[in-house]
Every structure is written in C-alpha cells, then in structure tokens.
C-alpha cells in the first residue's frame, strides 16, 4: 500500500548518490530536510524551486553530515539565504571544515563548504510543515545522526539509520573511529529506539517512503546480526557500496586504473590492507568481479561504468 502523507510534506525522491529531499510547506515559507550530493546540486535547486512554487525556503535541516545529505547546502544557502541547522556534535567539523572528520578525504567524496546557523539536539521538539517533530539521536551509520519522529502523524524521517532494506554503512566501526563493537552496539540501540516509537510510515534517506516498518526492522536486525557475527563482512560491503557511490560521481573509470584509484582512497586502501589483507591489484580484481556479478556496475570497452539500465 502506498503511504499517505500530510499535504504539507513533499518528498522529492532521489537516487543513491543524492539523498531524498523532504520539503515542508509552511504558508509562504518552507523547510527542507537534506540536500543531496554536490554533483547534483543544480538539479536539487531546480527541483526544490519547482516544489516551493514561489515560497521562501527559510530553513534547511540535515539528518547527518554525510556528503549525499549536505552536498546541496551551500548552493541552497546561496540561492535562498536559508538558515542551516545541523545535528549537535558536528558543529566543530563544519565550522573548521574538517574534511577528515566529515569522511570526505577518507572516502574521496566532495561537498561545497557551507556555514551553519544553528544546532538541533536530541530530544528537542521542532515544528515542520505545521507538525510537531521530535529529534532522536540515532548513532550507528553516523554517530551524531538524528531521526525525526512526528507522533501525531506516526511518521519517521529516518535518514540512513533505517531503510526499507537495511541501513547505511557503520563507518565508525569499519574505520576504527570508536571502540571495537561500540558503533555496532549503537546501531542496535538505534534500531531498538526506532522500534519503540509509534511509526506508521518511514521516509528514508534513500528509496521510497514505506509502511511495512516491522518488516524493515526485521531485515535491519538480521543484517546487523550478520555484521556482528562476521565484522569483515561489514568492510567488504562498505568497499562495494562506497566504490559504487564514487563511480556514480566519477561517471566512468578505466578498468586499468582501478587498482591505482583504490590505492589513492584511504578508506579502500586501509580496509584492503587491515581487514581483507589484499593488495590493490587483488582488491581491484575481487571488487570488479563482485560488482559485475551483483549487476551494480558494467564493463564497457575496458571502462567501468555505473549500471545505467533503469
């Protein structure tokens, strides 16, 4: 069944390189949650303008600080003069523009620098689209991430903490940024927290809004259990997902350059050495065969391209 959403809320469903953009209409003004990837900023601007229909974009709120959710911030800030609100805990990284902490240099992803105007703290109530939303801390994929729950409409804006099929890469775990097991445990607590909320419809960071919340949670718990049992699986998945993401940004990469490319990205280099115990050539061979088999990429005349078949 198709989710029934309040009229003041418009979901602009995007793909995997750009997160969904959720627009709240508030009389003559509006609030946007998440802004997509920087390479798509022009289209994001045009889509938001189309949906604004002459309203003033007053606020832009981010669920978390990854490149596919904050990439359009600078362009929208420049175009609309909107105030930008970020989850508390990342303000230093944004103010100092710490590309390592924002995982930009680590994963070779891009974001145009922006300034923030305010913070949203876990537990706070905010109004969006005339509806009350409570911010809940949702660590795991991102340790400072927030999800937004509207108890009256039983809606959850889940960011990358819960998708219809899974959740985002647990970066702090695979990169060793937290105590071993801590980010996995946080992910479990986040799923528990979501399960405890009264939710009828989830608007995820990627993919269509969905109502089969219990099934989604079951899949997420199952995936988490598999990671807990075999942490290396988490790293293998992360390499595949991050490379597919980067290839969407690059558009194409000569297969002959893959090993050198993987070697140039700290995330791939580090995981290959530390977890998979593979050199760059072996990683390139393994990755190519895995992604071709999964149909995530294609090999055309010696060039790796994202799978473009719709």
């Amino acid at each position, binding site marked *: *069944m*198709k989710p*029934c*959403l*309040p*009229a003041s*809320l*418009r*979901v*602009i*469903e*995007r*793909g*995997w*390189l*750009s997160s*969904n953009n959720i627009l709240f209409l508030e009389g003559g003004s509006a609030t946007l949650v998440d802004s*997509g*990837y920087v*390479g*798509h900023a*022009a*289209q*994001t601007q*045009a*889509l938001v303008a*189309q*949906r604004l229909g002459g309203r003033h974009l007053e606020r832009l709120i981010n669920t978390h600080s990854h490149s596919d959710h904050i990439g359009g911030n600078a362009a929208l800030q420049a175009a609309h003069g909107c105030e930008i609100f970020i989850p508390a805990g990342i303000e230093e990284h944004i103010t100092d523009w710490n590309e390592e902490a924002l995982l930009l240099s680590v994963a070779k992803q891009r974001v145009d620098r922006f300034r923030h105007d305010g913070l949203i703290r876990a537990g706070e109530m905010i109004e969006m689209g005339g509806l009350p939303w409570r911010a809940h801390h949702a660590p795991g994929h991102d340790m400072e991430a927030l999800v937004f729950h509207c108890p009256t409409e039983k809606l959850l804006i889940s960011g990358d903490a819960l998708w219809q099929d899974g959740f985002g890469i647990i970066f702090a775990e695979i990169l060793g940024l937290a105590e071993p097991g801590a980010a996995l445990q946080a992910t479990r607590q986040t799923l528990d927290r979501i399960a405890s909320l009264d939710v009828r419809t989830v608007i995820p960071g990627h993919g*269509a*809004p969905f109502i089969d919340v219990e099934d989604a949670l079951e899949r997420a718990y199952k995936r988490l259990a598999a990671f807990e049992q075999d942490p290396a699986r988490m790293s293998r998945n992360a390499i595949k997902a991050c490379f597919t993401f980067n290839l*969407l*940004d*690059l*558009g*194409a990469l000569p297969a002959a350059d893959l090993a050198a490319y993987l070697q140039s990205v700290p995330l791939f280099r580090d995981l290959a050495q530390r977890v998979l115990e593979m050199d760059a050539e072996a990683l390139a061979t393994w990755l190519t065969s895995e992604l071709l088999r999964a149909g995530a990429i294609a090999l055309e005349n010696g*060039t790796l*391209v*994202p*799978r*473009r*078949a*719709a």
Partner: protein
Amino acid sequence: MNGADDCTGDEPASPCIGLCQMDDETGLCKGCFRTLEEIAGWSGASERDKRVVIEANRLRREMHDPDADMNCNCED
C-alpha cells in the same frame, strides 16, 4: 496528489539512475529522461501516473541516443 489512489500495491520503482543533471535543450534529465515536474512529483504520483511516466521515458529514450552523455559527467 498525496492522498489515496488506485494503486494495487505494486508501486513502480523510481527510474532515477543517479546521473541527475538536466539537459537544457530537451528539458529532460540526462539520466532518467524525466522532466523536472515528473521527478519532483514522483513520490506523490499515483501508481498509474508513474506507469505513464515510465512509458514516456521509454519513448523519449528511444528518440535520443541512449549512449549520449553516458560518460560525460566526470567532474574530477
């Protein structure tokens, strides 16, 4: 737009392929061949409207060179 519609529960998946750049000449996305209105309205569209868009995409794709601009979004 956002209310109940005549869906059967079998919602077509978004045709987005992650290219997400508009072609100024055609007014269509270079990746999925949708107009801005079709992309912006996708999530709230009825199942039937989504199928109409997908069929229109197929025809538009055939009219354009399907390989055009495939490798032209390299920005690094």
